């Protein structure tokens, strides 16, 4: 029955997926051609990759709204593969590279079977950002010249960047009409790319910017052909070369270099980048999925790998999951795998029907699209964001970026990992923290018993990119519509990658109706005010004057605002007489923080220690205190089985309330003055306790102390606690 419904839903959604597939194919066509050209491969190879990817991944993949095809991350690796393997001969190099692509596809299938979908989690996020920026700069540096019509540019990315002014001068001083025209088309196309999003016209926005460029580019030909008397200014080398009979003579891979060291190196590079790009994209696209599904990344890896192998055999590039096209898919209301399939079919139709028109596209027009994508990858925005997280993140980012540009992608990312690790050890002034604990299963997850039934996750020692997979594997086992509390209080150090991931978990739980809260970070110090900044516990410094509020503190302050109460993170004076409560008789209060208060009531985190010196145990808990205007008998009220030891208070006797045998059975009520306690516990009050969640409630004669669990409460629990406390105060003052 369910299956039938699903099928029906699938069929019902086909029209809108057909449409979104069409829109995506409009982008995929110019991008596919452009990425292939930028990689030094025949333009058609990008289209082959997209067609094979679209068809195979739609049927075999594990994700829902992703689009697959040639990826921009691979441009640099493929280009260098083609030049090194062919020793300068692009034609030959491409045939060898195809072999590398086929093998990398096989490796991706293997990764899928080994369940390495978590591969991208092993890389520090700033290092990945640095690598992506390097790829962006690499693409931009080369394609900028092509965009200006200058085709014969040499050297590595850094030299190419330096030559950009020269190319401008060359463009404006050249006598070659073809170059000048190509440069003009390129610059105009770039302007289309930049201003496209600023033109808010519904009809204009129907067609994606790259397709406008194609229209413009092909339109120029027809303008010169039919309307203008001038000659068509572009020479053949400025136009893309698509051979006749596109699909009749596929290029075949040549495996003869497969045993050489540089070949193996290239295979590893391609596999690494293809996998990381795909995994990051899948993760990002899952957040956009309108139906909130979770992708099976391992299944997707297998499908992408298989598609890459087929694509390689047919002369196409790697098949990866691509973020930009996928988000266009979602924006155009794509809802299931069929849109990926339709995008491939439309591409096939375009190629078969409009081959001669496509041959009229100028290289410079396509290059402008790539320049724009490259800029997006390496935009100064990203650098600024990284710097806001922390200067050490910027350092990691820059070292990865520069090493990648100067050497190769693999060296770059390795350098990034190494630098991250070194920075972490320097900041913690301890390498032992990492080496001793890296292999330990430092994450504990269990379902808290009791009514709430939420999941509790505690992390010990440290949490960084080195062991994030352990935390992730636990978190992934929690259904996203549940409540989760992640406690870092036993953790000395939490790095930026983990903080960023916590944030994305928070988002996905929120989307799916659950609640994901991080606690235990309020004590950790940070260097910047960014929410993703890394945090560590300092044993020696205790006061952080300008402390960066944690997410929990922010939500507490929001709660305080909603209630119109005051909020102080570190109040100056101890205004609450906690000492008088039996609860604190044997315990030493160290500090009271995060105080939310109004005239009579206050809610706070209290840190206290049990025992002394070596027997000392530090406990942090959230409690609620209310001062009453009338005198109350001293009493403690407990649910059966929470704090039995409170029993031991001297002089306290059990009190049974008459006529409420059920209440007496479920609660432990004890105190000194039995008579006045019985008077206090009227029917209303008994009913209140019976019908509300259980808390430990204690009276010292002047005020009430309400304690939930003996740990810090999450924002949700704080709300419940305040609500309980304020209502209890009202009832007690009434009776």
């Amino acid at each position: 029955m369910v299956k039938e419904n699903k099928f029906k839903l699938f069929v019902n959604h086909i029209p809108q997926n057909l449409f979104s597939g069409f829109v995506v194919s409009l982008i995929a066509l110019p991008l596919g051609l452009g990425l292939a050209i930028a990689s030094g491969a025949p333009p058609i190879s990008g289209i082959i990759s997209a067609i094979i990817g679209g068809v195979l991944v739609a049927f075999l993949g594990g994700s829902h709204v992703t689009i697959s095809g040639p990826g921009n991350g691979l441009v640099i690796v493929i280009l260098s593969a083609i030049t090194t393997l062919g020793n300068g001969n692009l034609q030959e190099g491409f045939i060898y590279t195809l072999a590398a692509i086929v093998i990398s596809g096989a490796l991706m299938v293997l990764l899928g079977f080994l369940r390495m979908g978590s591969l991208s989690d092993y890389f520090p996020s700033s290092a990945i950002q640095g690598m992506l920026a390097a790829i962006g700069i690499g693409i931009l540096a080369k394609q900028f010249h092509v965009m200006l019509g200058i085709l014969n540019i040499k050297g590595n990315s850094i030299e190419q960047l330096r030559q950009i002014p020269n190319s401008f001068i060359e463009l404006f001083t050249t006598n070659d009409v073809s170059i000048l025209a190509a440069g003009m088309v390129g610059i105009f196309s770039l302007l289309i790319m930049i201003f496209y999003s600023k033109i808010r016209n519904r009809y204009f926005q129907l067609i994606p910017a790259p397709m406008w460029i194609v229209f413009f580019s092909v339109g120029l030909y027809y303008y010169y052909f039919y309307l203008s008397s001038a000659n068509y200014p572009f020479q053949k080398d400025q136009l893309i070369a698509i051979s006749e009979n596109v699909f009749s003579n596929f290029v075949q891979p040549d495996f003869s270099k497969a045993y050489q060291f540089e070949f193996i190196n290239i295979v590893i590079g391609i596999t690494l980048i293809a996998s990381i790009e795909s995994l990051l994209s899948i993760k990002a696209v899952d957040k956009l999925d309108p139906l909130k599904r979770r992708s099976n990344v391992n299944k997707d890896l297998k499908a992408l790998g298989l598609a890459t192998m087929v694509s390689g055999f047919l002369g196409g590039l790697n098949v990866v999951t691509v973020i930009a096209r996928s988000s266009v898919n979602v924006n155009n209301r794509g809802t299931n795998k069929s849109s990926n399939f339709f995008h491939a079919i439309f591409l096939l139709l375009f190629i078969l029907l409009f081959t001669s028109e496509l041959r009229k596209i100028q290289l410079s027009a396509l290059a402008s699209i790539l320049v724009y994508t490259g800029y997006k990858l390496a935009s100064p925005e990203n650098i600024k964001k990284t710097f806001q997280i922390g200067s050490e993140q910027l350092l990691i980012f820059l070292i990865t970026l520069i090493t990648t540009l100067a050497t190769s992608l693999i060296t770059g990312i390795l350098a990034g990992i190494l630098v991250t690790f070194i920075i972490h050890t320097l900041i913690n002034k301890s390498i032992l923290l990492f080496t001793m604990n890296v292999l330990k299963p430092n994450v504990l997850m269990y379902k808290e018993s009791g009514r709430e039934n939420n999941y509790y996750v505690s992390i010990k020692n440290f949490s960084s990119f080195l062991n994030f997979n352990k935390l992730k594997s636990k978190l992934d086992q929690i259904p996203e519509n549940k409540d989760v509390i992640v406690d870092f209080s036993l953790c000395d150090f939490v790095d930026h990658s983990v903080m960023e991931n916590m944030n994305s978990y928070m988002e996905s739980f929120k989307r799916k109706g659950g609640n994901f809260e991080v606690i235990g970070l309020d004590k950790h110090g940070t260097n910047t005010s960014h929410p993703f900044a890394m945090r560590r516990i300092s044993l020696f410094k205790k006061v952080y004057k300008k402390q960066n509020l944690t997410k929990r503190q922010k939500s507490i302050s929001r709660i305080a605002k909603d209630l119109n109460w005051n909020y102080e993170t570190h109040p100056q004076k101890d205004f609450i007489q906690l000492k008088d409560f039996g609860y604190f008789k044997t315990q030493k209060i160290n500090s009271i923080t995060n105080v939310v208060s109004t005239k009579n009531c206050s809610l706070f985190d209290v840190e206290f220690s049990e025992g002394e010196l070596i027997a000392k145990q530090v406990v942090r808990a959230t409690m609620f205190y209310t001062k009453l205007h009338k005198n109350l008998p001293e009493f403690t009220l407990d649910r059966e089985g929470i704090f039995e030891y409170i029993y031991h208070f001297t002089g306290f006797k059990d009190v049974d309330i008459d006529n409420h045998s059920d209440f007496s059975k479920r609660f432990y009520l004890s105190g000194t003055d039995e008579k006045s306690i019985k008077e206090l516990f009227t029917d209303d009050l008994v009913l209140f306790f019976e019908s509300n969640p259980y808390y430990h409630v204690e009276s010292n004669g002047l005020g009430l102390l309400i304690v939930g669990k003996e740990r810090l409460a999450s924002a949700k629990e704080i709300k419940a606690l305040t609500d309980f406390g304020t209502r209890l105060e009202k009832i007690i003052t009434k009776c």
Partner: protein
Amino acid sequence: MNSFNKVLIGIAFSPSLKSNLFEAIRLANMFEAQLICVHVGKKTHEKDKELANIFNEADETIKKKKIIWSEGKPVDVILNTCITENIDLLILGALQKENLYLYYVGSIARKITRKAPCSVLLLIKPSIERVPCKHIVVNGLKDLKTKETIETAVYMSKKLNCTKITIVEEVSQSEIHVKVSDDKSLRKATIIKERIKQREDFRVRDILKNINTENIKIISQSIFGKRGYSIGHYAKIVRADLLVMNAPNKTGLLDRIFVHDIEFILSELPTDVLIVK
């Protein structure tokens, strides 16, 4: 199970001697057991006097005690005494890492723990004043020894006036045959976990049927994690005062290289630990 009738403590004349001894006296009295103190080293007049002083200072007087002076290798001496004296419980003190609230078992104590023929109690924080025991965590592994271990935990809680026991069923991840990779497998895994949890609860309840647990609140909690390690982590989070565990079946060199079960606990004591043999 047997009750603890003979308790052994190794004495070294270190600053923590007094608290160790006080703790041992208290425990021995609670168990109504004979306390046997072993010192590895020569008997001198000063040492004897110091010892006598401490015994005099103690609030409680120990009824049955015996002091053995013996020379040789500490590990051998203590292990031999365990056998010859027919000891039921061996008490060892743990060490604390400097500056950190992190306790571990020293190399000699570790050796003894591994080889001891009797139950071993590792104390992380012996104190001169009594710290009441409020919460005992005990493992509920699917193992032949578990029944006895739980019985011992109940026995301990009665003797120590502890009213709360949590039985932790550690379920290894591999028992959930489904790997979570998408919504469907997640649902499946969640159902399987729920089923395992009920099965484990049922098993524990079965064990408890024949144990008198009057006045003790017993909770069972299943956690999915690495055996031996997760229970320590759990004990730390719930701030248990005593963790009761099965003795490992046997530990060879390989077990020390591929650390598991009890070895995790020994390298990072979450609280006082009782290993039941």
